[in-house]
């Protein structure tokens, strides 16, 4: 029993990060019908922004919740700017062409960011500073053997807070209303006097900031960061967005948590039924194929569309 609870905690922990990234995929898709393949790399950029800020300000010296908060906010801002720049200089100029052009552009941007980072700082993994003292501190015990570490608690709390904040922005603010309007129909929204370029830019900014938060948070649990860390994680977050119903915000969160849990259970229990833990990644993509075959609109993305 405690093993099961533990695996659930592990799975939801991974899933929360997927969910944060999946939100960016789903928001951009909702508004532009674009799969922003560079999004996984924005997640990586966020993690590295946090890493370099911490190094240059000498914040890595000791564990501190305040430093972590500062790093988190700073890297979210940097990633938001990166996201807006990508949109402004790569996607906006080709937006008037076919959707395929934008998609190819997205793949190009993704490879460009990855290879720029590899060329500039090398592919070797780097260690993100440990702000929570999780390397030396024992975890909190729930019951039996089930334990939850400080890093995991922070990941859960911050991602829930960010998701609620996003929900509030989208449904309770003027910009949110504008975002929803743009997602329903870009041209009509423009006719209604909405500055659609600004709204699209803002959508990229919010999505990128969430991904960066995912990058910094996950680095507290897993300090290993490298320029290619966004590829697989980004793809799985994309699968999560599709599973939940792409364009659907609660769907992205649900998809993320499900993929995270599914992966962890494959690893944790798969060997009982002869599935090695190395099948973890295969399972995520098998889910993608199944969803596309059985329910192309995803779990929550059916008739009522909450596209943003």
């Amino acid at each position: 029993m405690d093993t099961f609870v533990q695996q659930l905690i592990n799975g939801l922990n991974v899933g929360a990060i997927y969910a944060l990234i999946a939100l960016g995929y789903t928001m951009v898709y909702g508004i532009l019908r674009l799969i922003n393949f560079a999004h996984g790399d924005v997640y990586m950029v966020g993690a590295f922004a946090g890493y370099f800020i911490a190094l240059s300000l000498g914040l890595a010296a000791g564990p501190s919740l305040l430093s972590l908060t500062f790093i988190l906010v700073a890297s979210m801002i940097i990633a938001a700017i990166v996201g807006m720049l990508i949109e402004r200089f790569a996607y906006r100029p080709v937006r008037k062409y076919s959707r395929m052009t934008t998609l190819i552009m997205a793949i190009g941007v993704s490879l460009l960011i990855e290879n720029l980072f590899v060329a500039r700082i090398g592919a070797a993994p780097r260690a993100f500073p440990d702000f929570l003292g999780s390397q030396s501190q024992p975890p909190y015990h729930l019951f039996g053997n089930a334990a939850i570490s400080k890093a995991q608690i922070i990941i859960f709390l911050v991602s829930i807070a960010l998701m609620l904040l996003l929900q509030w922005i989208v449904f309770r603010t003027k910009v949110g209303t504008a975002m929803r309007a743009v997602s329903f129909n870009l041209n009509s929204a423009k006719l209604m006097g909405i500055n659609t370029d600004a709204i699209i830019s803002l959508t990229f900014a919010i999505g990128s900031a969430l991904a960066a938060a995912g990058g910094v948070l996950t680095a507290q649990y897993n300090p290993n960061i490298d320029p290619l860390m966004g590829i697989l994680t980004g793809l799985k977050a994309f699968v999560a967005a599709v599973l939940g119903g792409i364009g659907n915000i609660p769907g992205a969160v649900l998809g993320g948590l499900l993929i995270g849990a599914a992966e962890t259970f494959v690893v944790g229990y798969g060997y009982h039924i002869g599935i090695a833990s190395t099948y973890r990644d295969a399972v995520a993509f098998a889910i993608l194929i199944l969803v596309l075959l059985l329910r192309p609109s995803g779990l929550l993305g059916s008739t009522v569309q909450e596209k943003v």
Partner: protein
Amino acid sequence: MKRTLFALFLITTLLIGFACERRGNGANGGGTGPILVGYYGDLSGRTSSFGQSTKNGVEMAADEINKAGGINGRTVQIITEDDQGEPNKAATVVTKLINQDKVQALLGEVASSNSLAAAPKAQEAKVPMISPSSTNPAVTQVGDYIFRVCFIDPFQGEVMAKFSANNLKAKRAAILYDFNSDYSRGLYQFFKRSFTSLGGQIVSEQSYTQGDRDFSGQLTAIRAVNPDVIYVPGYYGEVGVISNQTKQLGIKAPLLGGDGWDAPQLWQLGGASLNGNYISNHYSVDDPSPAIQKFVADYKARYNILPDALAALGYDSMKVLGDAIKRAGSTENTKLRDAIAQTKDFPGVTGKISIDKDRNAVKPAVVLKLENSKFVYETTIYPEGATPPVTSAAPASGTTTAGPAGAAAPAKAASPTN
């Protein structure tokens, strides 16, 4: 990306085809110019710490040889190629070194998968190759031109199995290994065989793949069966994180590893969570023997960092090669091959090196304990049949193979000369 690589690979292979034509009657022996030695390793990929350390060791050895007047009047020139830690690239750069640069011998790689990809090229061209630190047995089985100056995985796996069973008194071991690495899979098999033959039980076998970021699923499954020790024969990038997550799950059993852990980055990734774990390795910087301390001091003066085992092996591989060229009196490939094969009791930094009939080095391994960002010498374990030397190179002489738990005690020797 992959495509481009493949295209590049095709083009290189074609070019090589032409180059080979010319090679046939090209004299690669005798000569009076510098002796060209090709070094290939991972200088920019995921295991670049390995390649860099080895390169440092190789270059330092070459400089020492040149300063002492070279070999038979000829200087040694190292030509370095980066394979980015990818087997395909390793094969490509080795072909380049052989055909374009016309090197007379090759040094490399660290990772067994990369050595295995490159060795057939060296064998085909009959250019002697010495791997400083690839421990998978298959590497030297490629052919009679392939050698190594380190021990092999059956022994390294056996060392940790013996250490767990005899010194740590472990009865139940769990294993977490890297599914795609020849090195890790090899160690996993040999540890398992050896540990069960010593009466131990393997209670859980889990795997991961290089680049994985979350290991909590595997570790929770391992925690559920409550092992005494957990064997993690991986590379430092993943191991640092595994150690961290082990502590976050409240697992108290120590992690055991191999020489793949030995990199400065390990400490940044794992920090304090690494304390209390053990690895098997090729040598210890704590070793008080004058030869080793001179090497450590020279290396530190030159690179401003303590040499890890890979640097020491890189150094030894160049020195063994130099010694063989000297004895052969030429760099003619068959003579050089035979001279390397006849290496006996060469006094290396990583122990006395003798090449056996399978072209592997026979030598003892050390077990190091991880404590406060340092590898602290714990004990030395000798190969089966080999008697520990009377004047042991290691600090704790008398700590033998099957020594009881108490044997580990007198070890905690001299602190490193930082």
